């Protein structure tokens, strides 16, 4: 069983990222001393998988020793060249791993997913969950033999920018991606250690908060995004790889979001069986059928879905809403 005994390479971890206006209080998880500083407490994914925890025991996110530090290393852990599904993994969020805010602690934990079918049954998962919960549960599925495929297509608030508006105390960014970023960073090493086979069935990860909740105003950072059918393998491709069913896992609702509905309907048309479950309700996944969404299969559907969203220069979604008074 892998050991988590190692040091924080920089010595004692700071208690706060040190930025004004931050909503992240710093590291509070229990720690213990090591030769070179504090060891951040918890168990590795390997220890969790080996210990066979009861369903009612929450699996906490852990840190392992010598976490990968380079963006390329981390992305390679999530999208190894050998994996059949890596060509769909989105690198855009990984490009921001250098940000110090990508190392904030993650407080969420994975749910009990023991009800998931074994990989041999060739089901594919779509985890459309808020924030870091998608990553955490993706790693939990990885311990069962699924390959998590991150499809996060937005960028976080640029490093150094105030997180909250000082007047309204509202988040400057439409979508808070920092917990996802942090979870991707800390999950990379345990994921790499699992040595999943190249043809492990996929678990696609989406941020359920991707479309935001409010209208953006000038000087705010609009990083709302949508998922497209082209973000996923086609139904034909999935079928050719032996995938026969899709399990959609969400939280607080069973109805798929409007953008994801197009993809699910494509898969349904290709002959894949759809099932859905809620993370917060202890019930098995139920089969369902999805009706045709608006503008289904229209050639302009993608262009239409992207209207009103702001594209980032380096790819993905995320840009400042311009001040209408700026410029001549």
């Amino acid at each position: 069983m892998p050991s988590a005994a190692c040091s924080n390479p920089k010595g004692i971890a700071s208690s706060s990222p040190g930025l004004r206006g931050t909503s992240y209080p710093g590291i509070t998880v229990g720690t213990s001393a090591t030769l070179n500083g504090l060891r951040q407490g918890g168990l590795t994914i390997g220890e969790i998988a080996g210990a066979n925890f009861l369903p009612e025991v929450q699996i906490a996110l852990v840190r392992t020793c010598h976490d990968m530090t380079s963006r390329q290393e981390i992305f390679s852990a999530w999208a190894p060249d050998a994996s059949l599904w890596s060509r769909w993994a989105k690198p855009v969020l990984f490009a921001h791993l250098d940000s110090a805010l990508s190392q904030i602690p993650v407080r969420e934990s994975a749910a009990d997913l023991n009800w998931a079918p074994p990989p041999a049954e060739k089901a594919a998962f779509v985890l459309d969950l808020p924030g870091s919960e998608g990553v955490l549960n993706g790693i939990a599925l990885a311990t069962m033999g699924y390959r998590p495929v991150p499809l996060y297509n937005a960028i976080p608030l640029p490093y150094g920018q105030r997180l909250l508006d000082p007047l309204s105390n509202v988040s400057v960014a439409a979508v808070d991606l920092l917990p996802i970023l942090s979870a991707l960073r800390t999950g990379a090493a345990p994921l790499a250690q699992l040595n999943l086979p190249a043809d492990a069935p996929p678990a696609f990860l989406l941020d359920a908060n991707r479309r935001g909740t409010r209208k953006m105003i000038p000087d705010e950072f609009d990083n709302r995004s949508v998922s497209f059918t082209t973000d996923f393998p086609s139904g034909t491709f999935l079928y050719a790889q032996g995938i026969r069913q899709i399990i959609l896992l969400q939280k607080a609702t069973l109805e798929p979001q409007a953008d994801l509905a197009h993809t699910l309907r494509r898969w349904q048309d290709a002959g894949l069986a759809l099932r859905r479950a809620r993370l917060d309700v202890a019930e098995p996944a139920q089969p369902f059928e999805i009706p045709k969404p608006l503008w289904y299969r229209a050639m302009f559907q993608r262009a239409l879905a992207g209207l009103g969203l702001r594209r980032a220069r380096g790819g993905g979604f995320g840009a400042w809403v311009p001040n209408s008074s700026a410029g001549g």
Partner: protein
Amino acid sequence: MRLIYILVFALSLLLAGAAVQKWGAAELRANFTGVAFITLIALPWLIAATMLFAWFGLSLRDDVAERKNTAALVALCGALAGVAFTYIGGNLGEGPSYWNNFYSVGLATIGFFGLWLVLEIVANVSISVAEERDLASGVRLGGLLLAMGLVLGRAVAGDWHSTEGTFHDFVHDGWPAGLLCVLAIPVEFADRPSRHRPFPSWLSAGLLPAVGYLVLAAGWLWWVGRWEGMGR
């Protein structure tokens, strides 16, 4: 991958300039600024076309730059070249005004996108390229769009006489582009990825039909011969 598209873009501009220099109106060929002007106008025209491609299901940014979709790159290069040929054709021959050039170019380009629209409505070919990422589909579509661009460009090339005359010549000489589009529909249904054949051969299902379209287009160009004023 985007660099390949930029290269095709640059070559299209160069070709436009060279064609106008060789076969454009005498007034344009008389001095460099006329040729330069027509060539420069091609720049926003091709940029606008590139932006319009996204509404036809293929996006340079989303499919090529972000998803590294080779099939989309090939299809988009063919589309760009097709639009370039409609632009070039509309600028060949004598005419009293730049507006004659723009009318001819506009006519051919509208015809180009109109036929592509028909293909999309009937056969959803962009799904095979953008979602399936099927290289054969990308090659096939690229070849078809290039072929249609050649035919439509040739249909509007030649000396200007009148608006009605230009439209008449466009239909008379450009109808094979519509035939190509009609021929492509059953080919799309036969060769696109399916459960029984998820990964069609890019040679037999892609290059072969693409070459077929181009051979038909070239044959028509040979048959219809020189445009009015080409010999001068």
